[in-house]
């Protein structure tokens, strides 16, 4: 309720807000700002010297850095494209099937399909590495069952397939999230709307495309932006499955692993916090750009329905 004006200073508001604001500011906002600031400095003779955009010039101009950066960015875009094209449509389809009324075992399917999402990247990365390993032979054996054994290759070890394979593993792990969010959105569509559609003879597939899909578009928008942020921030799966070098031959390198290598160094290269900060700044700008596109271009055009 609104407090009456002209009341003495309400200390309790401050006390309620203080812990969250302090922790959040100290551990999240200040370091984020600090990282952005650090990208403008460089360590020369043991002291931090302001160099303006020099680090970014190195990142884009020096072939040692720029080749890796564009490679990581390209791979990251592909990683995102696969998620959008595979994960989200499958998620929507599963949610649509699950939400059909009187479906038996719906709770069982829901629970089972969400299992990979709760597992850690370490488990997922390693389990798939084993399954796809030509040494063990689970994948070739399975493909043999359907007569496709000749198509088997060690996908994670081939430059041309490794990134796509890893993206699909990530899709496998996270398909539960779009499924659940869309499922929740579908359940919240009121019965009357569906009934009205049925009275007009719109059922089955056309009911989904014409009635339900437009109603869940805001949820699909949210899922897209969550996928975007998650993908451009990804690191763990690649690191677990392929190591910090994101092999074979950097073919699975994405911005997260690139940042890790720049920051901590690897093999002969020494870690460079300032270049790390520059890469983090680029990631920040990319994510911010994506969020802004979503907020200002997509979300404002989505029509929301109030029931």
């Amino acid at each position, binding site marked *: 309720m609104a407090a009456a004006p002209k009341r003495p200073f309400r200390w*309790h508001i401050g006390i309620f807000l203080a812990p969250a604001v302090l922790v959040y500011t100290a*551990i999240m906002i200040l*370091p984020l700002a600090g990282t952005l600031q*650090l990208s403008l400095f460089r360590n020369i003779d043991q002291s931090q010297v302001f160099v303006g955009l020099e680090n970014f010039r190195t990142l884009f101009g020096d072939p040692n850095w720029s080749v890796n950066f564009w490679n990581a960015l390209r791979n990251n875009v592909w990683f995102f494209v696969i998620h959008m094209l595979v994960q989200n449509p499958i998620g929507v389809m599963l949610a649509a099937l699950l939400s059909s009324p009187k479906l038996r075992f719906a709770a069982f399917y829901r629970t089972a399909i969400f299992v990979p999402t709760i*597992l850690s990247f370490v488990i997922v990365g390693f389990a798939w590495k084993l399954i796809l390993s030509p040494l063990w*032979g*689970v994948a070739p054996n399975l493909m043999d069952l359907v007569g496709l054994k000749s198509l088997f290759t060690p996908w994670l070890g081939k430059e041309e397939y490794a990134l796509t394979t890893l993206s699909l593993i990530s899709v496998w792990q996270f398909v539960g999230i779009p499924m659940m969010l869309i499922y929740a959105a579908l359940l919240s569509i009121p019965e009357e709307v569906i009934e009205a559609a049925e009275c007009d003879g719109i059922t089955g597939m056309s009911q989904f495309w014409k009635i339900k899909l437009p109603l869940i578009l805001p*949820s699909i928008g949210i899922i897209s932006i969550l996928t975007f942020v998650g993908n451009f921030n990804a690191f763990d799966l690649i690191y677990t499955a392929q190591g910090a070098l994101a092999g074979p031959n950097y073919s699975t390198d994405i911005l997260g692993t690139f940042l890790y290598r720049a920051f901590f160094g690897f093999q002969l290269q020494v870690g460079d916090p300032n270049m*790390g900060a520059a890469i983090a700044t680029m990631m920040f700008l990319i*994510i911010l750009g994506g969020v802004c596109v979503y907020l200002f271009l997509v979300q404002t055009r989505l029509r929301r329905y109030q029931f």
Partner: protein
Amino acid sequence: MSTATRSLPRTIGAHAILLTYTVIALFPVIIVIMNSFKSRAGIFGAPLTPPTPKTFDLIGYTTVIGQGDFIHYFQNSLVVTVASLFFVLLFGAMAAFALSEYRFRGNTMMGLYLALGIMIPIRLGTVAILQLMVASGLVNTLTALILVYTAQGLPLAVFILSEFMKQVSDDLKNAGRIDGLSEYTIFFRLVLPLVRPSMATVAVFTMIPIWNDLWFPLILAPSEETKTVTLGAQLFLGQFVTNWNAILAALSLAIMPVLILYVIFSRQLIRGITSGAVK
């Protein structure tokens, strides 16, 4: 009314697709757990069959339990997750209450400020977070992880909880005020118990990424003392690249606790997610 839309082929089709996907989702987990109970010959000879008396072998588990300090890692993970969860829920609920209950100058700005962290991942601040932790001597302590995860979890917690706190009836709170309860009592005694279901939702959203995180334990607390189970498993698996029994057993040991917890709590978890908190 729904019977009108149901037809037998369509139901069968729906079940076929869902069942296929369920198999895809569970297959890798099942195959890892199944093979962890087999001898080396069994693992390679017949990877797709369940263990038979002939191939049954616990050698992998004995290797893992003999080698790794898994129980200790497990404790670390548990301490970090539970402590972060506690702070996220407490601080998040307090801030959400302040934002949803009182009208004050800067309310909207404060809400937006706190919501910023939902979209911008905390990971991008890692370089400066590490410097901060080095400066304050918190590197290789669980405190560092708890602080980072608390900050990471707060934005979403505040956002979801303030949506729910807006629904708590004003009459109830005003009745409390007339009875002379302080604002703190109103929050802890009246409001908090009423939003308990949404706290469960927030708990789930907060817990899974913390338990599974590899990045911050790797960077802030990689010492033997403070390793979490995710980091421990990662390093452990790296050591045993050729010992398939041990790898499969380690993976199964890492999967099973989470899986058991999930099966026990899946009903609450899914209800939490589908309760509309994230619309």
